[in-house]
């Protein structure tokens, strides 16, 4: 490997600024074991995109099975061999597909791919830091994640196949290889992969929190941080507090599986073979899993909320409505998300009293979510909305969040959950609110910050095509699924052929599958746009969207250390868009109030009497001039 000397020259300019050691970047240190947060963000993003494409492919496979349960697809046998003998997916492989689809999407795409990408990219750039608090830990975070991905995918290449107990891997199904083939080596690999993944997200999370708390530039107090940073900050806290619990659960499951303990197992008989395990409880796993699992869904959605808030504000050319309310609602969601996990367990047979309590906390969490939604709508009101692809996806995110969030009110109600639990209604709910809303938030972020990552713009027309097909098809896929759930069709069913009442849904399944295929193909527009634009896209200006936040004050060239000279100082909040009296419709955070005397408002000075006096004097002197304008 040799150096890339040409692209590397700028390093010498800025090394002095932050006391970086003089060394030459090799291919290995620049692109592979990079410690630059921007490169790590790109690594997370591209790995996340690859994993998303794989997981989407898996979903198309099982959608084929659901739509045409009696039809044979010999091409599948060509690629899947014994798992699709005669061109039909086997039931145990079907379960493996849904399991790995869920695991990849929730953890690898929407946690690592979303938080990993945008926290890494935006935290140092938006709070004004040269890099993360610990670049080395940051690099390790990516490589642990990468290893986790490799191990997870590796489980497709073993004889017994990948884990297939559902992405929640409830024991005893996941604990006993006899219960299902996927609970053999495949499950072991799933568990190892998960431990690595949690290690990765912890390293990431600790980094994000310490960077945000300690490395903000001058003037960047907490209440001047963009909502993206607030979202990433609270997401990281959630992750740090909840992921270790998953590891604890996973370790106990490893013990049960490999060392004969009985944490989750008791009174189990297969046929006439009585297992020796006694005294454990399968419910314990569910408590541990969902103690992470529920915060996890907010780990998934909060970054998407932060990203959408920022993008909606920038492209409406309006300040985000209720900045403080947005932050308090994020904090509210963060706190409450720790005490709602039981709503996944209403019908496990746990004490019904607990069910009642968890129902109350669950429905309370809908209040901050509602506040956020109304604030987004109010931000659009009387805006001057530019429909960049990022903006479209942000609006799509709001739409999905409403649709998916509302069905959460049904499922959070313990009484209604009795009949909806583990049906397609749940599938429809979380695919709208996570699978669609969070993914749209992520895509919005990619379109919006692509110039920040690669110095080029993505093609907007392909972006429009991508958005409208995906938006329409996602609704076509997930909206009808609610009704299957209302008819009592359970999820994770290999085929609808064994029950007479399900046969009427077969045609709906065909519609859903075709929509899914079209939505999948629409992603080709995105992938092409993404990879083509990295190399051939239109060159971006420094601040292509006219945004206020700090990342757009850094040069397009993406220096190691972010800013060539001193790190800019922050004087104002990030949402001064279309401020009356200002010349332009945006005032970057780095512009001091002394330069915008004509647009300053009393509120801006936060009770600083000195500044208020100066402003009053200026207004007195300039009043006639103002009137003539």
């Amino acid at each position, binding site marked *: 490997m040799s150096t890339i000397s040409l692209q590397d020259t700028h390093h010498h300019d800025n090394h002095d600024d932050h006391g970086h050691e003089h060394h030459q970047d090799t*291919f290995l240190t620049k692109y592979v074991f990079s410690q630059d947060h921007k490169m790590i963000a790109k690594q997370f993003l591209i790995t996340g995109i690859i994993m998303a494409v794989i997981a989407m492919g898996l979903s198309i496979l099982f959608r084929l099975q659901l739509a045409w349960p009696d039809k044979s697809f010999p*091409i599948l046998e*060509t690629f899947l*061999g*014994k798992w699709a003998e005669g061109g039909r997916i086997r039931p*145990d492989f079907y*379960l493996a597909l849904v399991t790995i689809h869920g695991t990849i999407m929730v953890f690898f795409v929407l946690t690592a791919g979303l938080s990993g990408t945008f926290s890494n990219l935006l935290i140092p750039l938006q709070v004004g830091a040269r890099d993360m608090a610990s670049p080395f830990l940051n690099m390790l975070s990516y490589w642990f994640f990468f290893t986790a991905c490799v191990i997870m995918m590796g489980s497709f290449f073993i004889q017994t196949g990948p884990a297939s*107990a559902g992405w929640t891997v409830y024991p*005893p*199904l996941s604990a006993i290889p006899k*219960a299902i*083939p996927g609970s053999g080596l495949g499950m072991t690999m799933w568990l190892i992969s998960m431990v690595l993944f949690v290690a990765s997200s912890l390293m990431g999370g600790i980094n994000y929190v310490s960077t945000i708390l300690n490395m903000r530039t001058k003037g960047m107090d907490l209440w001047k941080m963009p909502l993206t940073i607030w979202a990433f900050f609270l997401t990281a806290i959630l992750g740090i507090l909840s992921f270790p619990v998953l590891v604890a659960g996973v370790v106990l499951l490893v013990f049960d599986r490999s060392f004969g303990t009985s944490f989750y197992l*008791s*009174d*189990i*008989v297969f046929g006439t073979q*009585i297992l020796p395990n006694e005294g*454990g409880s*399968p*419910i314990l796993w569910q408590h541990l899993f969902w103690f992470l699992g529920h915060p996890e869904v907010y780990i998934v959605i909060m970054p998407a909320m932060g990203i959408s808030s920022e993008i909606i504000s920038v492209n409406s050319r*309006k*300040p985000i*409505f*209720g*900045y403080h*309310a947005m932050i308090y609602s994020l904090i509210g969601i963060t706190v409450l998300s720790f005490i709602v996990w039981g709503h996944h367990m209403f019908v496990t*047979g746990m004490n*019904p009293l607990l069910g009642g309590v968890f*129902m109350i906390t669950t429905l309370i969490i*809908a*209040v901050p979510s509602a506040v956020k939604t*109304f604030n987004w*709508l*109010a931000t659009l*009101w*009387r*805006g*001057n*909305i*530019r429909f960049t692809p990022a903006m479209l996806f942000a*609006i799509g995110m709001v*739409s999905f969040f*409403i649709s998916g969030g509302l069905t959460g009110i049904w499922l959070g*109600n313990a*009484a*209604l959950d*009795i*009949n909806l639990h583990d049906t397609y209604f749940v599938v429809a709910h979380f695919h709208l609110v996570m699978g669609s809303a969070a993914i749209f938030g992520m895509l919005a972020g990619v379109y919006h910050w692509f110039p920040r990552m690669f110095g080029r713009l993505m093609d907007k*027309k392909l972006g*429009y095509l991508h958005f409208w097909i995906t938006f329409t098809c996602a609704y076509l896929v997930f909206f009808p699924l609610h*009704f299957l759930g209302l008819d*009592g069709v*359970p999820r*994770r*069913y*290999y085929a609808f052929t064994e*029950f007479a009442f399900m046969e009427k849904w077969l045609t709906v399944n065909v519609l859903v599958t075709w929509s899914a295929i079209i939505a999948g193909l629409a992603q080709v527009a995105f992938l092409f746009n993404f990879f083509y634009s990295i*190399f051939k896209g239109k060159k971006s200006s420094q601040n292509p969207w006219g945004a206020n936040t700090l990342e757009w004050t850094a040069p397009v060239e993406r220096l190691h250390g972010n800013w060539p000279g001193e790190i800019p100082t922050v004087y104002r909040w990030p949402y001064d868009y*279309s401020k009356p009296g200002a010349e332009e*419709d945006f005032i970057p955070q780095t512009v001091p109030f002394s330069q915008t005397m004509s647009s300053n408002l009393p509120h801006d000075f936060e009770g600083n009497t000195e500044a208020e006096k100066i402003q009053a004097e200026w207004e007195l002197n300039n009043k006639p001039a103002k009137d003539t304008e």
Partner: protein
Amino acid sequence: MSLKKLISNKTMAALAVIFTAFASTNAFAQEAAAAATAKPVDMGPIYKSTLFYVLLFLLLCLFIAIVGKAMKVYELTRESEGKSEGINWDLVNGVIFVVFLLVGLYGVYWEYTVHGNMILPEAASEHGKKIDEMFNITLILTTIVFIATHIVLFTFAYIYRHQKDKKAYYYPHNNVLERVWTVIPAFVLTILVLMGFITWRSIFYKIEDPKNKPLSIEVTSSQFQWDVRYPGADGIVGLKNYKLITSINNLGIDFNDKNNLDDQVADEIVLPVNKPVRFILTSKDVIHSFYMPHFRVQLNTVPGMTSYFEFTPTITTAEMKAKTNDPNFNYLLLCAKICGTNHYNMQKPVRVVSQKEYEEWVVKQATYLTNDLRKTFKLPLLADPAEKPAAADSTAKDTTAKTNQLALKK
């Protein structure tokens, strides 16, 4: 070799990709060929049809590329003529949002009326009616919010689309407004919580009516079947212990417990209408879920833990057939928790009948206790007809009748 070179060296990369793909396809193909030697399949047309779809897609891509280029040419000519940029994308997207809203609203209406008519019929149990009430209230509230917010979202997108001479209205916050839309959802949700809480408690905290004691039925799940045990004449489902499970005692029933002597096995669940029934739910191997959607009943069956669900069926199967206008209608018990390969086919028929029919049916059911088990548990063997190997149905039924009589005498 620098990265730039590496990437510009596209042919190398492409070749590598093609080679890998080809090699793996070959490997798979060989494996498939090995498997298919006994039954050679002509893969030709299949590959052709796959190729056909791939080509179709590529053609579509080409078409999109051409349209894209045409648009670009149009925009460039507009630009060179000094006119404003060709297509006003803000207007285009704004209009599509409105179209999406209108089509979407119709779609929602269509879904509610067409697919909404295909969902479960009315609840066939007492508590199910309360659940359905909650369901309707929640449905109405969420639908109103769903429609209203979407109308606002998409019309705002259209009305406030970018226009050159316009400026957005600087409106960072309004505490009154924010308070309003915190308090209103909080209020509505409080009502829903209270109603849900009361309904939930009424389902799981039943006060037993001594005059109308529930019928106890035990259901044991295992991969992939439901075993149903009726209590027999004494009305009590006896003790069992998983350690006693053998090939002839598949539930591990402990026949030293007298309550077990009359317990009956049933291959369907038959319930008397309007009589409370208390299901005792256990599992042998993994977690399953006891799901009877028509009664709005679901509870997981967990190995090592017994759970209970009590409810009262209110509509007989025959009545439901009339109500749904479906002569093939049947109540069902499904498994709703992923439990293994045959999860999708783990069912048990359920019938709700009149008290009289139930009584006629239940006496015909065989007991769990057979002479083989009597030997194992060192219980006195039954005399006469049953002593002969009881394989035939009639003998089994005789035994049942006998046992029942014995039980009655006790």
